[in-house]
């Protein structure tokens, strides 16, 4: 028996696709007997550190394919393959150009320094999970507007149930439910600022294909998805107070969120995502804002409950706000790509072989294997697939529908540009405001100050010269 002459090494943390990757590898090996595909599913903890030791220095022993969202900065250092030129190649497993079987908008949106550093396979998004059984019992319909949702919440509360289960600890403000709420609100209230802070002709990151023809259109959720924001213009706008956080716009935004929090459980600041999920699963809370990755777990957990405790559940998208002093477009999503695979730069022959495997993985039959195996082994999917033609079981398909087609947030200001100190300070004051310990005016005053104080720190940390025309070397 001949030994395989080529080895493709996929090291991943996407354990939900464990069996899918294995079957995919065997199928590929069957098609290409000279190739061996090694799959290594690794724990998230330590994965990034491992990648940072393997990819730059381990030569041929480094993984060929990996979860690229754990390797920020590696593409810029020339360690990963720019997949842009391969996108026009014919995918032998579909007979069409590779890009035609992918999601071009996602690929364009998540370009790194003008190049394609990874291929997205699926994406994650948030939506409201609700107790259908309870809704039927109370004669409620899924809401069409934000205001309608609050009316429903009032009726749920009057019936003796908790309307919303919300985790409110510091983690939630940063990367969980409260953070998501603030993000989709902020996006809706600040979309008008995109033209103000986007790259302009002459800027180092200006791309005419993406920015030249952009005209703000609030009725199109994807209108600005490809627009490049120039961080120095953004910082300058905050520094010069062209963008303000203590004005009427943010006053209305935060007043709305606080009004929404009247329907959350008491003392939500002490709850984590597990507590909130427990409230929903046990039927005490009617609605839960969660990510698309929860579907598999919820199906499983519901099946594990004693029959009397089970209930029918569904998902509805975040409904649009219809009453505002400002022109507020419908809320958009705050998610992004889930499984993203990058290719490590080795030699051209190896790259071609790895790209061929990636083409197989992202073909409808390849991606279908991932889905089928995940479903068969009762593993949760992260969210809807980005490969056209992949079929989900009908039940899953209906659950995923509310997660799709809403666009993605552009500007988010819980803290400035994800700078940790401003995020922490914002969390402190936002929690105090939500708890009623400081007034809205006091909160906004603090918000304005903490955002302004973050500007010089970010400039120093990222070694920016505040001239958008020059590309600055990151530290």
């Amino acid at each position, binding site marked *: 028996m001949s030994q395989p002459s080529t080895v493709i090494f996929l090291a991943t943390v996407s354990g939900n696709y464990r069996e899918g990757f294995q079957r995919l590898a065997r199928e590929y090996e069957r098609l290409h007997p000279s190739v061996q595909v090694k799959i290594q599913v690794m724990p998230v903890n330590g994965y990034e550190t491992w990648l940072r030791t393997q990819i730059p220095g381990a030569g041929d022993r480094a993984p060929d394919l990996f979860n690229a969202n754990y390797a920020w900065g590696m593409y810029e250092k020339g360690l990963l393959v720019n997949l842009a030129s391969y996108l026009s190649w014919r995918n032998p497993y579909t007979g069409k150009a590779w890009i035609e079987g992918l999601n071009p908008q996602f690929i364009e949106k998540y370009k790194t320094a003008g190049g394609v550093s990874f291929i997205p396979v699926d994406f994650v998004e948030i939506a409201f999970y609700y107790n259908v059984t309870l809704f039927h019992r109370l004669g409620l319909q899924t809401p069409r507007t934000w205001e309608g949702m609050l009316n429903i919440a009032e009726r749920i509360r009057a019936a003796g149930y908790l309307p919303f289960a919300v985790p*409110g*600890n*510091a*983690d939630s403000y940063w990367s969980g439910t409260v953070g998501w709420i603030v993000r989709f609100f902020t996006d809706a209230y600040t979309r008008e600022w995109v033209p103000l802070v986007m790259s302009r002709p002459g800027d180092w990151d200006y791309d005419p294909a993406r920015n030249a023809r952009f005209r703000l259109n609030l009725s199109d959720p994807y209108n600005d998805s490809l627009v490049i924001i120039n961080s120095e213009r953004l910082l300058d706008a905050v520094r010069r107070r062209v963008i303000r956080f203590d004005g009427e716009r943010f006053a209305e935004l935060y007043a709305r969120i606080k009004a929404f929090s009247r329907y959350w*459980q*008491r*003392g*939500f*600041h*002490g*709850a984590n995502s597990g*507590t909130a999920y*427990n*409230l929903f699963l046990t039927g*005490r809370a009617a609605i839960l804002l969660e990510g698309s990755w929860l579907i598999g777990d919820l199906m499983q957990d519901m099946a594990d409950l004693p029959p009397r405790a089970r209930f029918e559940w569904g998902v509805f998208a975040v409904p649009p706000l219809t009453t505002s002093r400002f022109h507020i477009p419908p809320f958009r999503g705050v998610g992004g790509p889930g499984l993203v695979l990058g290719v490590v730069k080795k030699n051209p022959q190896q790259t071609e072989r790895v790209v061929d495997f990636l083409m197989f993985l992202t073909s409808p039959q390849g991606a279908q294997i991932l889905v089928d195996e995940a479903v068969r082994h009762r593993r949760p999917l992260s969210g809807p697939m980005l490969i056209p033609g992949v079929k989900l079981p009908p039940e899953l398909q209906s659950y995923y529908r509310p997660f799709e087609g809403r666009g993605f947030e552009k500007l988010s200001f819980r803290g400035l540009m994800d700078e*940790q*100190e401003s995020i*922490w*300070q914002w*969390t*402190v*004051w936002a*929690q*105090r405001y939500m*708890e009623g*310990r400081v007034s809205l005016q006091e909160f906004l005053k603090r918000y304005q100050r903490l955002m302004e104080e973050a500007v010089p720190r970010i400039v*120093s*940390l990222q070694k920016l010269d505040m001239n958008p025309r020059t590309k600055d070397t990151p*530290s």
Partner: protein
Amino acid sequence: MNPRRTPIVVVALMLAPTLILLALFNYYPAVLGLSRAFTRWEMGEDPRWIGMGNFVAMWHDEFLRLSLRNLFMLLVANVLKTLTMPLLVAELLMSLRSLRWQYILRTAFILPMVVPGMVTMLLWSFIYDGSVGLLNQVLEAAGMGALARSWLGESATALWAIIGIGFPWAGGLALLIYLAGLNQISGDVWDSCQVDGVSGLKRVWYVDLPLLLPQARLLVILTLIGTMQDFGSILILTGGGPGLATHVPALHMYFQAFRFGHYGYAAAIGLTLFIAIFALSLLNLLWGRRLEKLA
């Protein structure tokens, strides 16, 4: 020369690895930390001397100022906890006639010390949970459901909930130290008390307490140091929140260093905490000695 004495060279060689590691990983970082308190040392940058700049910044740091109030509350509460409940339990144990029961109960009080601190914290976070917590369930069962709340999730109760951890605060090291102290008191002293008709609370107040002052002094020092340095439990349970309700200077130092990358500023907070602990320990030592003399 004593033939049984190990040659100094061998002793030095055997101690050397420990001493070198101690110097390298304990003393060097500590001394370095002290010197770096006077520098601007940010993540990815070389430290730059700025004199008292970090200390001036501390003076204007509103978050640090607000955290001092919490620390003061914790210090007072923890010292009171250390000085009261373990002593009470130690006295009760000593008053038991049956040595067998004394031993069993002493073991029962000391045994929880083997539970890892992290497990204890997670247990208490479950007890305080607003939705499924044990405390709320007990309150509801007792007909006091109106008092149920998210104990760690509301500013009004979060710090008190942290203080309440370990209730009834009777076990552990403090109990052992008090028991050791009580055991040191000569039986003659207690016999004399009996002869003079001094018993019960009177004996505790006039005889035991004055004789336990050295133990109490040690425990106060340990509590002060522990309270000022500890932020792990708060980090796990509340992260310092909600808002700043449970934020303490040591947690502020941790955030400054490991979340925000302001190493120089964090070192300055560390140095200040060190000076404060040292000063409080010194005061405790001086006052303790004076009290002992008076006693």
